[in-house]
């Protein structure tokens, strides 16, 4: 069952990465990239590295998404659609 969950998480990383590349909306692509990092963190935990998982969850999923959003807000016009 552990292998099944790891396989599911790897499929989730794959789908999220493909969505982050192919989506038109920049905000949706940022959210998808954060989700790929989140799945990767759970995958690290299931493979037996809780400290790596905690770092990945805090930096990859939290801080990286926040910084991407801040950069998009700073570089887009305020009347853009998204």
């Amino acid at each position: 069952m552990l292998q099944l969950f790891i396989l599911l998480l790897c499929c989730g990383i794959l789908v999220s990465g493909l969505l982050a590349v192919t989506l038109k909306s920049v905000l949706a692509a940022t959210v998808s990239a954060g989700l790929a990092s989140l799945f990767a963190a759970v995958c690290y935990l299931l493979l037996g590295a809780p400290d790596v998982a905690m770092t990945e969850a805090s930096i990859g999923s939290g801080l990286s998404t926040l910084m991407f959003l801040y950069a998009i807000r700073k570089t887009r016009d305020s009347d853009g659609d998204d």
Partner: protein
Amino acid sequence: MAEHILLAAAALIFLGVLLGVVRLVLGPTVVDRVAAVDMLTVMSISMISLYALVAGRFIYLDVALVYGVLSFLAVIAVARYLERGL
């Protein structure tokens, strides 16, 4: 009895992750995708908690705690962005 409950919980988490990924792929608007990401975060937290119980290593519950706090932060950041406040 206990392993049946654990198996049912694992099946429900599996179903939840599957439905969340379907909503993430199909979702027409950004708000749908953000809601799907929030649901998938909750599914991840429950998966970590279940694995902590199955493996008997309760240090993993700390990871679930950090996860919960930070996913809340990310969703709040996206909501503030959509409100044009960030």
